[in-house]
């Protein structure tokens, strides 16, 4: 088509463009496609797979669902401006279950979900919506449980009696984790001393290393690192200082020298359980919490930890951790939820 010559060509082009726009708008009218695959699920994440963290974990949950006979699809939508169109396109194409992750999608989902009442949405890592929406389930994670257990573990294995907490940014949820960590440590050893610091970013391993190094210079010998990408630096400092870390990322050969435990969330497993709940009838809209009881959150012994001379006795420490976990699950220990600043 020659667009540059004469008014007739331009008019034709504009008419064609107008027609195309009208058709596109008709397509965006909000109708849900008929005859969709009933055992189909789409996962939409704000990051691509390959982060070695939450996104990979969610994608592994998708693989679990695929093995269980679901038709699965993963869409990475790093550009926030594409979030609404991505969700609408998936819903219009008849995807019966759409899982989104993290707070990036909160406003968009509140806009899109009412237009697709037959589609069920699961929002992983989100606070409950107010008001509740009939086709949206949110899943938040009780990270205070593993934080309390980390306190028990750190206080048990510490030789100096000084333990540390390194958070990514100073936000209420991390304050709550710190207070749970402190409660677990003090319940185990009343005279334990705690030091805490925040990196100011979840992506600054260099500063994470400097904070940890400063802590280790101040007699700290076990640290709970809840700093995402910055935790890599904490591990490096611990390797240098021959101290120990309770880590919030995936363990690897590089963490084998210092990481004694992993405190994190099973995003993928939790997502798979919630999606299966739609078929077995246990799904309900509104806010839900995943925690120690349903394996949504965990404190696990690091499988790759290389115990060297002078290493702590992790067998007896984890025996204590397991006993404490059982008490938290059966309600005999009440883990505090305190979002006051540290």
């Amino acid at each position, binding site marked *: 088509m020659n667009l540059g010559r004469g008014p007739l060509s331009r008019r034709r082009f504009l008419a064609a463009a107008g027609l195309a726009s009208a058709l596109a708008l008709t397509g965006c009218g909000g109708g849900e496609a008929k005859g969709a695959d009933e055992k189909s699920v789409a996962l939409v994440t704000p*990051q*691509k797979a*390959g*982060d*070695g*963290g939450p*996104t990979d974990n969610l994608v592994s949950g998708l693989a679990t669902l695929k093995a269980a006979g679901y038709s699965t699809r993963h869409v990475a939508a790093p550009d926030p401006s594409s979030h609404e169109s991505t969700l609408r396109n998936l819903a219009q194409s008849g995807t019966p279950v759409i899982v989104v992750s993290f707070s990036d999608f909160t406003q968009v989902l509140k806009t899109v979900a009412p237009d697709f009442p037959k589609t069920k949405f699961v929002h992983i890592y989100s606070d409950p919506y107010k008001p509740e929406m009939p086709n949206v389930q949110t899943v938040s994670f009780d990270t205070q449980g593993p934080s309390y257990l980390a306190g028990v573990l750190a206080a048990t294995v510490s030789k100096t009696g000084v333990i540390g907490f390194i958070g990514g940014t*100073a936000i209420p949820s991390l304050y709550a984790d710190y207070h749970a960590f402190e409660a677990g440590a003090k319940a185990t050893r009343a005279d334990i001393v705690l*030091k*805490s*610091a*925040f990196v*100011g*970013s979840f*992506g*600054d*391993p*260099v*500063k*994470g*290393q*400097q*904070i940890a*190094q*400063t*802590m280790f*210079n*101040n007699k700290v010998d076990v640290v709970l690192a809840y700093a995402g*990408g910055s935790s*890599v*630096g904490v591990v*490096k*400092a611990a390797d*240098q200082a021959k101290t120990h870390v309770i880590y919030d*990322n995936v363990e*690897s050969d*590089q963490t084998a020298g210092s990481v004694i435990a992993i405190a994190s969330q099973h995003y993928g497993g939790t997502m798979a359980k919630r999606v299966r709940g739609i078929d077995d009838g246990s799904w309900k809209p509104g806010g839900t919490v995943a925690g120690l009881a349903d394996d949504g959150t965990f404190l696990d012994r690091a499988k790759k930890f290389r115990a060297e001379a002078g290493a702590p006795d992790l067998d007896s420490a984890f025996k204590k951790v397991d006993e404490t976990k059982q008490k938290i699950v059966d309600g005999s220990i009440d883990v505090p939820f305190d979002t006051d*600043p*540290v």
Partner: protein
Amino acid sequence: MVDFVVTCLQAATPIWLAALAGMFAQRSGILHLGLEGLLLSGAFVATATAIRTGSILLAVGAAIVVNLLLSLLFWVLVTHFKANVLIVGLGLSMSAAGATGFALVAFFDTEAAIQSPIGLPRPLAGVGGPLAGLSVLTFAAFALTWVSWWVIRRTRAGLRLSACGSDPFAARSAGVPVDLYRMASLQVGGLLCALAGAELSLAQVRSFSDNIAQGRGYLAFAAVLLGGLAPIGVSVAAVFFGSALAFGIQSQLDFNDVLPPQFVLMLPYAATIAAISATVVVKRRRGEQPTLVMERTL
């Protein structure tokens, strides 16, 4: 106390080397807002090459080569295409942030940190104690500061370089090839930023993650202004910023009950603004002229 000094130097070294790079550029008349980008490219290339080759020399060498090419591009855009120097600098920084993130996925198929099995040598590792943690580039920063001072204060080339920035019209009239001096200063800057990037990624953490520079290149730019374009002044300013970062860390541990963490995290940046503002006020009271004359094309 020695521990604290070591942390100050470790925090300062990447800013210090990048600030020396910015000083050379600014002395030649180019406001270098691309320091952040060159830090990132240096850090990525050094880490990636260290992982692939297992050689620290090749890692640092590759980072230098890439940064020299990027600095050449910067120079071509600014001098031959008459592009706005601020926009090109910012563009370099933003492009490097995106490109290194893309390269992580393209070359290593991950968005997480990549980890190097080797790191920069530590000359005092055998001595033990806190000083053992300092990398060779921290000691190099002292030497490079002296070399920079000597070149700028004691050589004809240094005098001409300064003339390119302080009065390019007069420099041209005297037959100084201003554009060539600017290219040379940007090349030196590229080299120093490659070292800064290698220090950032291979000195302590031995890893690269997306946007690992976290604004240190902009702190280096501020150190150039605070140091008044003098090698020793710029170095002192960079160490001051490193010390502010280290003090922020130490005070989180010692004064947690008194100061909220958000306030402590803000301290290094507040110190930057306060120090630069104070410098401007002092210069105005002394009636000093600005050290840089911007040409219309730049």
